[in-house]
Every structure is written in C-alpha cells, then in structure tokens.
C-alpha cells in the first residue's frame, strides 16, 4: 500500500468525501476485475459480476467509517469483503442455476480491438478461466489477486493470512500447475 493510499484510506475513514471518492475511483477497477475473474461472463457479458462488484464497493463504503488501520493493508479489508460477496453470488447462482457456462459469444459491440483480435483474446481468456477452475481454491485466489487485481505478493498475503514468502512459493506452484494443465489442454484442443 502506498503512502498516499494509506493517507486516502485514513481520510476516507474519517468521512472525508473527497478522499472517499478518490479511494473509490482507485479501487473500483481492481474490485471489478476480481469479481469478473471469479464469476465470469454470463450470457456473454460481465453484467452479473459487475453487479456484485458494485455491491462490494457499497459494502466497502459502508464499512469504511468503521475501518481501523491495524497495520494490515487496506486491500486485505476490501478483498475479504469481495470474497464474501463473490461466494454469496456463487451460492445464489447455484441455487437458481442462472450462472450459464462461459462459452457464449459477447453480445455487445466493442469498439476497441478488431473483431478477430477480440475473438482470439476472448478465447484465450476463456481458456484460462477454464484452467483456473482446475486449481485449488487458494492457488486460484492467488492468481486472481496477483494478476486480475494486480496486488503485490505482500498484500495478497494480507488478504489470505499468509506470509509474502508463502505467497511467492504458492504462486510459483500455481503457475507451474497452469503450465502443466495448459500443455495438456492445448494439445488436446488446438486453437
């Protein structure tokens, strides 16, 4: 956590609305990616995941005034909230069976890259999330927090209650496992 983020957090916890807005702007992209990484596309869009991400943001805002800096990074606070909300959403999806499998085509126009490039990217992304599903929950969470969210190993340790060294060890193991799995599936299912 950078000094300025710590500063922002403490100001926001003291109900400074400017700091709250700035903190939200800074954290929201990571929270959205976290929820999308775990919940995937439904019907081709990240709508469900983004709804959950919004809930996480709101829960964070509500909990902020109660946040006390106890030496743990703020990300630990945020991504524990996020983990709970994602688990809730997954349980709800299991109950209602609304979480469709990921292999659906995006139904929204996207201006950014060309359609072909987009299709390749989406295909790779889908393949990776299938591989992630075969990792252990802890390894999957580490990959999500490190790559999807972009947290440093120290903060991932804070979220998961592990030392940074343990995170580094585990992330290497997760990567190695992904390489093994990718070797298998890529051989079986050519692109």
């Amino acid at each position, binding site marked *: 956590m950078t000094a300025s983020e710590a500063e922002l957090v403490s100001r926001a916890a003291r109900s400074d609305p400017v700091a709250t807005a700035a903190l939200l702007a800074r954290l*929201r992209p990571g929270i959205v990616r976290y929820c*999308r990484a775990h919940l995937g596309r439904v019907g081709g869009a990240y709508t469900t995941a983004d709804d959950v991400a919004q809930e996480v943001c709101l829960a964070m805002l509500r909990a902020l005034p109660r946040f006390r800096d106890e030496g743990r990074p703020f990300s630990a606070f945020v991504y524990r909230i996020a983990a709970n909300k994602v688990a809730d959403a997954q349980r709800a999806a299991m109950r209602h069976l609304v979480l469709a499998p990921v292999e659906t085509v995006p139904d*929204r126009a996207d201006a950014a890259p060309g359609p072909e490039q987009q299709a390749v*990217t*989406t295909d790779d992304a889908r393949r*990776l*999330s299938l591989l992630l599903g075969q990792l252990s929950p802890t390894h999957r969470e580490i990959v999500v927090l490190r790559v999807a969210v972009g947290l440093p*190993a120290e903060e991932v340790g804070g979220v998961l209650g592990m030392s940074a060294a343990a995170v580094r060890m585990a992330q290497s193991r997760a990567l190695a496992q992904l*390489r093994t799995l990718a070797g298998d599936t890529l051989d079986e299912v050519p692109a």
Partner: protein
Amino acid sequence: MTDKQPTADEQPADLAAFAADTLLLDALGSGAPAPPGDRVASLLAAWRADLDAELLTTDVDDSAVERDPAADPEVARLLAAAAADPSAGTGVTTAGTHARRGAGRSRRVAQRVLGVAAAVLAAAGGGLVVGAGHATPGSPLWPITRVVYREQADSAQAEHTLALARKAATEGRVADARLLLTQADTLIARVSDPDRASRLRATSKAVRDLLPAGTSSPSAPAPAPSAPGPAATGGPVPGTGAPTPGPLPTTAVPQPKPTAGGNQILPPIGTGNSPGLPLPTIPPSVGPLPLPTGLLPKLP
C-alpha cells in the same frame, strides 16, 4: 515442482524461479503484455485484458459516456447509491427510471439516483479537486456527506452552527446567537458519539457564556431563513429552553422524492453561494417547503 513441500530452506534454483515468477506476475498484474514465447503468460495476459473490457463504461451505455472522465460517472453513481442505500438509513423508495437491466433492487435504486449524483458531482467538479479536506456545510460535497455520513454530518453541522453563533455573539447580535445556539443544541442532541457530543456541548456552553444574561433585542435579521419564527418571538426565552423551530426543519427530512427529476439534491449546494451572509444552518431545501396542511387530497 507441483508436489514440492513448502519448506523454509528452498534451494537457490527455486529462489531464482520464485523471483522470476514474481516479476512475471507483477508485470501481468499491472496489465503489461506477456513476454514472447510463454504460452501461459500470454493466456494470463489475454485473461487480464478481457477482465478490463469496457471497464470504464460498463454501466453507462448511453450518451453519459461522453461526460468528463475525470468525474468518473461510476464513482458518482456508487456514492449516490451508497447515499440511497436503505441500510444507510435514507430509505429511498424505488421508482421509474430508465431501467437498463432487470437486476437487483439495489441496482435500481442506484440507477434512480444516477442522474442526481452525476449532477452533484458535475457541479462539484472544481470542489472535488480544490476543496480537499472535510466537507463542511456550504461546501459542494456537503450533500454527499449529509447523506452518506449522517452522524458526522450532524456533528459538522453543529460545529458550523456553533461557529456562527460565536461570531454572532462576538459581534453583539445576541438574538442571532441565541437562535443559532438553539439550533446547535438540536443538532447536538442527534450526535450519538459521547465524546463528540460532550465536546460540542462544552463549546455550546462557552458560546452561551459570551452572551449577556438579559433578554435580547430582535432587531437583527434572522440568519436562518428556515426558522424565522423563533427569531421574532424567542427573545424573552433564555438559554437552552428556547423553543426549537418546530418539527419540520430537521436535516433528516430532505430525502429525494421518488418522482425525482435531476435536481432534487442540488439545492443544498446553493448554501455555498452566499459569502458574507451567515450560512443557513438548516439546509434551505427544507425551509421553503410550506406545510401543506390543508392540501391533502382525499383518499378514495
């Protein structure tokens, strides 16, 4: 490598691999492209890029995208949604909006206030950058503070009112000071934090001690437009026993009505537009409301 036990005494080769993997994941986590020739890294990079897709505009799929990205509409929306959250105590009812996706209730609440919040933040744009620090009554962010952080809002409002009372007292405007003190006491009564409340009460007493013990002259104009009654009639009533301005003008009242246009939250911003005048200590959105006692439609 996958079956290796996590031991503290790793081999140097492992440590080098850990370091390399750490660097790779750091880079991917920051959104950097994968190094060439690493299949899994490129899958991870594609995945990460896909997670970012339409991130900025995900929930704003109409002309609102054209708004200044500096005033992130998503942030505005979330702050407004937090403000409108029933569990935050504001209890806004849902009503017709441009519902885009039939999702949850909270989402509809959020959408309902989207326009309002965007308007607030758009109007507050300069204040967001320049007016750092706590929002106080009269600042552009005050409406947000008031709804998101009620407790602090009452406390800040009380502090502000006490400051005005002290100013009035030192300038000899005794009636104004008394009125402001009365308002401050009402606000202090709503502050639940005991330390804060007792500090505020001490300040209130200190300001009251500045005032002469006698009656006051009502010659000075009332500073708070929402409470003209006590200013005119409250002269002979000293100290804390003075009547409060009645049940209507409390800060808890101004909830946006479900029939909202885009302007419901805007009026309080105007409190910052009157330099030189004493700031109204009760949001003026409440003040002008006439009591519609005779106007209730007959129920069928």
